[in-house]
């Protein structure tokens, strides 16, 4: 048998076993939450996967119809609870866009610091848990140790580690405490070398490469047809990131920032660092590439935070104050997507002239990304399922809402 995984093909000798229905989850550790998969198998080979979701459905959209936009902020924390800052930001920007509220530059830089820290925290969880899924325990300890430091920073800024409710329509709930920026810089400095360790235990690890390279290949066309977003889309070679390609209230924030979209061009990724090269067995759009895009985005986010800290320090305008709690919403609707760590998170608010939204909608990136699972898993082995599910980096709080 050829050891090169991408050339590995299952030989069809016309012998099939009885179709077996295997239930995986909703309490299976490698389904990343309460996701249930109904697998149809022919021996070890998957013939069909039907994801069953909804176990964590909390009617978030319906609740939003009974609350004021600022009151719904804590509910956004509980969508993607691994990157609450980014969820707060998405909803706040949507409401601000609807009300045509402008925020000060200083607020924008502060929000960028928080959103990018949230991105790092989310990607660290993704990388660590991905290692666990594939039988490697060490990276999990490394990543959670670092994530803990980010959560400490969040706690210092807003008093909460995961459910932050920090960014609100109009601004943020409070400016940073004294010494916070120095702590943040200290974190970034000590985190730099840890990334090399993560690459050593995961990215270039022979077992990890064999488990992920060439597994769950998502073509560029399918990724767009299924409206995949975030690292899943970029891992398939599509040059698309809302921080550059989105709509004004969001892209305005990143005006003047220098960053390159993490996407493969000509067989390599944009990076100033000496990270492991793409292994020969990897195919564009496979699980390895999705993982690698996240790892590079961590470094990219650190760079953006460093830029934001400089700008925040030099900005002289005051921090934005939250909008009035009973601010009336106009008639009509407004939809906005932001680049959350796991993909494009969209919020829609429909107003009818009162302060309470008529309808609230959350378009979940993980919900959309998960829909390709059936397509990706057809013909793979049962053992590859955790490798593929983990590479999509889903969080069920956001899928089920």
């Amino acid at each position: 048998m050829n050891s090169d995984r991408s050339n590995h093909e299952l030989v069809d000798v016309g012998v099939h076993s009885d179709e077996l229905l295997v239930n995986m989850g909703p309490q299976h550790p490698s389904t990343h939450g309460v996701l249930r998969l109904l697998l149809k198998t022919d021996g070890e080979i998957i013939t069909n996967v039907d994801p069953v979701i909804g176990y964590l459905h909390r009617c978030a959209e319906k609740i939003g119809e009974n609350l004021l936009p600022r009151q719904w902020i804590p509910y956004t924390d509980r969508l993607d609870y691994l990157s609450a800052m980014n969820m707060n930001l998405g909803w706040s920007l949507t409401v601000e866009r609807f009300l045509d509220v402008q925020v000060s530059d200083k607020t924008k830089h502060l929000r960028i610091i928080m959103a990018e820290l949230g991105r790092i925290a989310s990607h660290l969880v993704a990388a660590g848990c991905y290692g666990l899924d594939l039988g490697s325990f060490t990276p999990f300890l490394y990543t959670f140790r670092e994530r803990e430091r980010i959560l400490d920073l969040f706690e210092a800024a807003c008093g909460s580690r995961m459910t932050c409710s920090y960014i609100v329509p109009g601004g943020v709930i409070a400016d940073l405490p004294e010494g916070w920026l120095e702590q943040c810089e200290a974190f970034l400095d000590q985190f730099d070398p840890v990334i090399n360790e993560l690459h050593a235990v995961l990215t270039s690890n022979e077992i990890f490469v064999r488990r992920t390279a060439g597994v769950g290949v998502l073509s560029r066309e399918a990724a767009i047809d299924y409206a995949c977003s975030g690292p899943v889309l970029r891992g398939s070679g599509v040059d698309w990131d809302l921080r550059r390609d989105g709509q004004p209230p969001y892209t305005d924030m990143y005006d003047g920032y220098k960053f390159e979209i993490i996407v493969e061009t000509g067989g390599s990724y944009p990076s100033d660092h000496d990270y492991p090269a793409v292994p020969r067995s990897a195919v564009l759009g496979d699980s390895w590439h999705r993982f690698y895009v996240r790892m590079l985005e961590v470094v990219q986010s650190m760079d953006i935070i460093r830029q934001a800290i400089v700008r925040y320090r030099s900005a002289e305008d005051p921090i934005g104050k939250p909008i009035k709690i009973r601010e009336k919403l106009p008639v009509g609707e407004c939809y906005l997507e932001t680049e959350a760590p796991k993909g494009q998170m969209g919020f829609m608010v429909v107003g009818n002239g009162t302060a309470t939204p008529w309808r609230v909608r959350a378009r979940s990136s993980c919900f959309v990304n998960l829909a390709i699972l059936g397509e990706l898993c057809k013909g793979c082995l049962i053992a590859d399922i955790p490798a593929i599910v983990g590479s999509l980096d889903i969080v069920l709080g956001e899928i089920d809402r």
Partner: protein
Amino acid sequence: MNIQKIVDSLRQKHPLQMIGAELDAVDPSVEVKPDSVAGICRTLKDDPQFCFDTLHCISAVDYCEPDEKKAAKVDWQPHIEVLYHISSIRHRHRIVIRVRLPRWKDGIEGRLPELPSVSGVWRTADWHEREVYDLSGVEFIGHPDLRRILCADDWLGHPLRKDYTQPHEYHGINTR
């Protein structure tokens, strides 16, 4: 391509199916006839000048005011709106397709309004349509596998309808 050109060009291709356009709104939208939505979406995706390759979201909004006092003040008749947020990665433009449906088919309560499925145009529509069916109660004709997605298969009613009342119990479990 700017939004005015998109709408003009679309109107030329489908003059009878276009109902109106709101170009000054926060998110510019066009309203089309319900039975033509799949055809128009097909044009919007396949025609190289539009090339709307991404469907972001399908959302339904229920316009119904169960409170009689408040209902007397609103300036609309009860209906359901379905919104399709689409964009093009190649041309970097976006638009919203709006469809207006009766709350019940033929005005008979309990019969869900119908809309052609666009899951044949964008495959991502599959799960979005299941969600709209589940939560807002719109039947998508031509959908390959239309069943509930977030609520349990045997759940009663469609929770995002404004006149929805929650069942008191589910399989002996108190829900209140």
